[in-house]
């Protein structure tokens, strides 16, 4: 048995498939076009480079996962090494990225279905948010049924996905057609290759789901490092082979502006069958990521609840299925709610930021534990220490620097929300009331100042007089409400 009553039911095959399925999301089917315009045919090099950067951190996951095989992945590693707010922040970002990743995968799947129905001219009305929510609901049930069912579903999905991608690759390799060239050329030089590396790195994210499910993996000391390394190598081979076939078939400039570059390439040498294969592969990739992320978010929430950061009910297991059903259900509700908005960009940005921050903390945890817990039993050790984790940290920080400004902005917001959750859970109720009372007073004073500036004409508002009066009364009312709220909170008596 694993931690608490979590059952160790995942073998090497299922764990490896979880790593591969977690990473191959719908992203690879759409990101290749823009990446090819940045790096040209040298995108093949960028793919390998991404895989190697990913491997630096995955080696840290392998060492820590084998040494500390409890539920929670990065969060558990950070808790053992740092504790306090740093460990909570790691768990928070890990949990929230997996919830967002589940939404992203569900919305991606719904868009693929919508695209396929429209392409086939079928008279079926398609509602993208509704399909996304139903898909989340189905995989929530599978996850609640048991980790064995989750593992089996994942294995089946990934095997079909690999078979479809394998068909694309081998058909392309042995096809006599193709107008592309395999001669390496990078129109943007090294900078272009590096930009493409940062852009496509997302296709490698998600493989750390193995570490999150480590409390349910059989013989963790051997299986976790093997599964992580196998999935990393498999991803490098798959992505490089796909990029190789893409550039054999079409020149990079032809991929610019294509919604689904892989489907376009497949159509060039396989005809409509190719479009069908890639569409089915894309939808399966989205489903396998959804399955993995629902599992991963629940195990992180379970571990956070174990340590008192999340509601205690998240730490309970289903009597019959031995799964953290409340944590699965709660995270899925969030994922479904976000998926229902259909806002893909926001979700993708939030996912990237959280995963990359997690990478930094895992490498830092490894270095701290190597220094402080010399005698910790480590069935697997990261080679070339300390160079490997340092490179992992450096590459992750560099990737953060290359992220879109909006990603950093959303990341900062998520951090602030995390900080609020942490203080609510950790600081006593009375102190929270005092702090909230103080902030209410601040808002009240600010609103009063705004009201004063409006009524004295000090704010340059080019609005009708009635609207200005409405704004004045609104600001004054808000000031009064928050002043009363502040007094009610501050004058509250401490419960003993």
């Amino acid at each position, binding site marked *: 048995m694993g931690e608490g009553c979590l059952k160790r039911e995942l073998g090497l095959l299922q764990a490896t498939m979880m790593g591969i399925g977690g990473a191959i999301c719908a992203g690879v089917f759409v990101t290749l076009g823009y990446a090819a315009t940045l790096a040209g045919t040298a995108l093949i090099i960028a793919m390998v480079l991404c895989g190697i950067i990913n491997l630096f951190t995955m080696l840290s996951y392998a060492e820590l996962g084998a040494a500390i095989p409890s539920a929670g992945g990065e969060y558990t590693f950070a808790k053992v090494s740092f504790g306090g707010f740093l460990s909570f922040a790691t768990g928070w970002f890990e949990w929230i990225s997996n919830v967002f990743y589940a939404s992203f995968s569900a919305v991606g799947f719904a868009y693929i279905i919508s695209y396929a129905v429209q392409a086939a001219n079928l008279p079926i009305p398609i509602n993208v948010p509704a399909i996304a929510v139903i898909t989340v609901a189905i995989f929530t049930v599978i996850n609640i049924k048991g980790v064995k069912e989750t593992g089996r579903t994942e294995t089946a999905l990934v095997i079909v996905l690999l078979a479809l991608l394998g068909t694309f690759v081998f058909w392309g390799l042995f096809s006599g057609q193709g107008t592309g060239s395999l001669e390496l050329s990078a129109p943007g030089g090294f900078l272009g290759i590096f930009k493409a590396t940062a852009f496509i790195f997302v296709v490698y994210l998600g493989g750390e789901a193995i570490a999150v499910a480590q409390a349910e993996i059989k013989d963790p000391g051997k299986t976790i490092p093997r599964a992580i390394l196998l999935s990393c190598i498999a991803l490098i081979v798959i992505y490089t082979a796909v990029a190789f076939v893409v550039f054999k078939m079409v020149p990079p400039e032809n991929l610019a502006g294509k919604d689904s570059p892989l489907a376009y390439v497949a159509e060039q040498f396989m005809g409509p069958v190719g479009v069908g294969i890639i569409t089915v592969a894309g939808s399966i990739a989205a489903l396998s990521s959804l399955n993995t992320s629902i599992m991963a978010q629940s195990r992180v929430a379970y571990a956070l609840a174990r340590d008192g950061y999340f509601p205690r009910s998240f730490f309970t297991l289903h009597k019959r299925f031995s799964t953290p059903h409340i944590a699965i259900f709660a995270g899925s509700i969030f994922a479904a709610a976000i998926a229902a908005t259909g806002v893909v960009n*926001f979700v993708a940005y939030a996912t990237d930021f959280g995963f990359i921050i997690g990478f930094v903390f895992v490498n830092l945890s490894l270095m701290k534990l190597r220094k402080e817990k010399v005698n910790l039993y480590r069935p697997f050790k990261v080679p070339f220490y300390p160079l490997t984790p340092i490179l992992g940290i450096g590459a992750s920080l560099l990737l953060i620097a290359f992220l879109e400004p909006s990603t950093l902005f959303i990341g900062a917001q998520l951090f602030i929300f995390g900080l609020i959750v942490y203080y609510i859970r950790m600081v006593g109720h009375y102190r929270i009331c005092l702090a909230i009372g103080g902030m209410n007073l601040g808002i009240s004073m600010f609103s009063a100042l705004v009201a004063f500036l409006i009524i004295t004409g000090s704010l340059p508002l080019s609005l009708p007089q009635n609207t200005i009066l409405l704004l004045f009364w609104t600001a004054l009312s808000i000031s009064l*409400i928050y002043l009363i709220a502040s007094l009610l909170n501050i004058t509250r008596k401490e419960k003993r």
Partner: protein
Amino acid sequence: MVNVKKAISQFIGGIQCVLGVVASVFAFIIYTSSSMRETLAIASEGEVYLYMFLSSIFGVFSILSGLLLVRGEK
């Protein structure tokens, strides 16, 4: 006296929750609706994120404060 304080707390808490939800919805609408951005004369992407940030922080804070007042007096 206790009952009056309880009633005021629940009333003010309720208003804060409503204001919080309105602010959060406003943040979402700014992000998704270009017509709303035009109405509010928000020109740059930076301004969009600034308004979103302020609205969502205000929204979350108000909901939290409102819930504390409503639940605290139950």
